[in-house]
């Protein structure tokens, strides 16, 4: 076996695509294009360099590279070494990145010239003292992070590492096996009918599980992965032109982005005949806007995908043709091979409202925190009579028609106020339907008897008008104590409404919670 033969199923997808159709476009960004043969050969070259630099199977490697073709090479090369690839955000504050690196016990950073200075800073903050990025191949280098000679972490099977921000503390690592990611990628390719003639548009940050569809779904089907240049991401008009000029056929993004394309990007008046798969996840899609989308893209397939980072996608709903807002949108049923149940407070399976529990091949191996492996599942007695480890999502759901699951909000979004149990998302879904409202978030601060704050991004509406609308559509106990109108709501690096920022920020400041 050659030293650059595939290590596991994920990097084998690339090797196999390079074998089957070497001259097809594998990944493109702006003017740059790599065929599958070229991508595979660059991966081999870098993997050889990484090994020579001391990378061993089981090592955890931060991919500290802006999203680009280089980042693809770095991820695959880390996998090819049998390492765990951990994409990191080069724009994140180095302090935060350093904490993540320590939490996940990263042994190396792979980085670029442009990010080298902040990579070195990350190393310094982790108490490793100064170090230099060593160039390995054109554009990419390596920087050791952990103490030299540290033992390779247990479970040297390699895989993927994503971070999830807990409600408190620093982001912890979610360790995914090759098999976890592969199961999801296979399901998407089967369900979407992806083939080598598809062009998968990739906008999600590499730190976000949405991007695992882009990367591995395209490799599995031999499709072309089209990366949205980072500089365009904040410009809805540019994103729409990019979808058109690159003839994107499959696109997976958060609803907030789709909404921006609808309200500011001109997507309703742009012809996008190639776009046939429109998938979304990460937060509820405001029904009015989704209805407009379904009307605009009459022949496209819309997919509502559901699942936290710990399970990736575990349920899906294909939005029916001609769907309208009053139909309500479920998160559907479990994807093939995965078991999803609703459980009560005692973790018993229920047919009533309950917490969504997930078991099966997409459930991650565990968390990495303080360098230690931590379980993320609990043993649950499932409806088939067997007891299995399942991940409790913290999301509440109930069964509707045909056994489809509807979300009821978060366990931790349920608050007790003046004796009433209130789900903050119930408030949000009402406000979201006001025609002037582009986005909203209901935030509960329990201190001092509690305050219910409503943050609203809206056009041409006054606080007084909003209050009137609220009073006529919500019971009194659900009316906010305060309303904050803004041009836009702050977003997380994943493009979702940043609830933590809203919760922790002073009311007059929309950002500023992040320590820099």
């Amino acid at each position, binding site marked *: 076996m050659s030293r650059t033969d595939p290590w596991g199923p994920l990097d084998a997808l690339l090797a196999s695509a390079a074998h089957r159709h070497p001259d097809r476009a594998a990944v493109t960004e702006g003017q740059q294009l790599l065929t599958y043969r070229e991508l595979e050969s660059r991966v081999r070259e870098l993997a050889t360099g990484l090994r020579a630099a001391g990378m061993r199977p089981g090592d955890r490697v931060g991919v500290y590279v802006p999203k680009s073709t280089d980042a693809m090479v770095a991820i695959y090369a880390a996998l090819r070494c049998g390492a765990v690839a951990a994409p990191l955000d*080069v*724009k994140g504050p180095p302090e935060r990145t350093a904490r993540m690196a320590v939490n996940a016990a990263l042994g190396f950073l792979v980085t670029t010239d442009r990010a080298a200075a902040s990579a070195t800073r990350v190393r310094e903050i982790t108490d490793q003292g100064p170090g230099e990025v060593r160039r390995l191949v054109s554009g990419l280098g390596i920087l050791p992070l952990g103490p030299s000679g540290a033992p390779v972490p247990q479970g040297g099977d390699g895989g993927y590492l994503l971070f999830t921000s807990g409600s408190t503390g620093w982001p912890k690592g979610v360790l995914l096996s090759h098999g976890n990611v592969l199961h999801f990628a296979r399901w998407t390719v089967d369900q979407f009918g992806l083939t080598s003639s598809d062009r998968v548009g990739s906008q999600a940050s590499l730190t976000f599980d949405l991007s695992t569809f882009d990367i591995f779904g395209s490799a599995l089907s031999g499709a072309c992965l089209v990366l949205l240049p*980072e*500089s*365009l*991401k*904040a*410009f*809805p*008009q*540019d994103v729409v032109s990019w979808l058109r000029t690159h003839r994107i056929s499959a696109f997976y993004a958060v609803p907030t982005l789709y909404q*921006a394309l609808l309200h*500011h990007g*001109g997507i309703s008046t742009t012809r996008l005949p190639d776009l046939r798969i429109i998938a979304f996840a990460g937060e509820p899609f405001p029904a009015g806007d989704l209805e407009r989308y379904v009307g605009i893209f009459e022949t496209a397939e819309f997919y509502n995908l559901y699942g936290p980072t710990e399970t990736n996608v575990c349920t899906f709903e294909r939005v029916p043709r001609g769907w309208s807002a009053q139909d309500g949108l479920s998160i559907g049923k479990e994807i093939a091979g995965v078991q999803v149940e609703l459980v009560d407070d005692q973790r018993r399976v229920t047919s009533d409202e309950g917490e969504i529990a997930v078991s099966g091949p997409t459930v991650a191996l565990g968390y990495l925190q303080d360098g230690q492996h931590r379980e993320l599942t609990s043993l649950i007695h499932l409806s088939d009579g067997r007891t299995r480890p399942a991940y409790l999502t913290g999301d509440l759901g109930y069964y509707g028609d045909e056994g489809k699951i509807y979300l009821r909000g978060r366990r931790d979004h349920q608050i007790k106020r003046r004796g009433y149990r209130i789900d903050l998302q119930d408030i949000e879904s009402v406000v979201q339907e006001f025609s002037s409202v582009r986005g909203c978030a209901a935030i509960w601060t329990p201190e001092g008897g509690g305050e219910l704050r409503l943050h609203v991004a809206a056009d041409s509406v006054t606080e007084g008008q909003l209050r009137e609308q609220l009073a006529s559509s919500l019971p009194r106990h659900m009316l906010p104590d305060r309303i904050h109108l803004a*041009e*836009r709501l*702050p*977003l997380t690096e994943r493009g979702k409404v940043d609830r933590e920022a809203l919760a922790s920020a002073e009311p007059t400041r*929309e*950002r*500023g919670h992040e320590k*820099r």
Partner: protein
Amino acid sequence: MKNADELCSLIQEIIDEASGHADEKVDPSTPLLISGLVDSLTIMRIVARVEQRIGISFPETEVVAANFRTPTALWDAIEAVKGASHSEGAV
């Protein structure tokens, strides 16, 4: 606001508000997009503040990356929008 330098101080102001302190000084040729200096929220704020100060309406079709690459590029776009609105007014 009369020139690109004044636009730079306005952009600087907005970036400082968002991130708490300024690591980088914004000059007319500072690349705004590559360094990740501005995100979508910052861009919205810049547009709103420019509209307010100059009294123009900056059309959505002009909120594109090409016009936000550097303060100079944005200033050129503002001048073009101003020119267009003047000639419209003259008609």
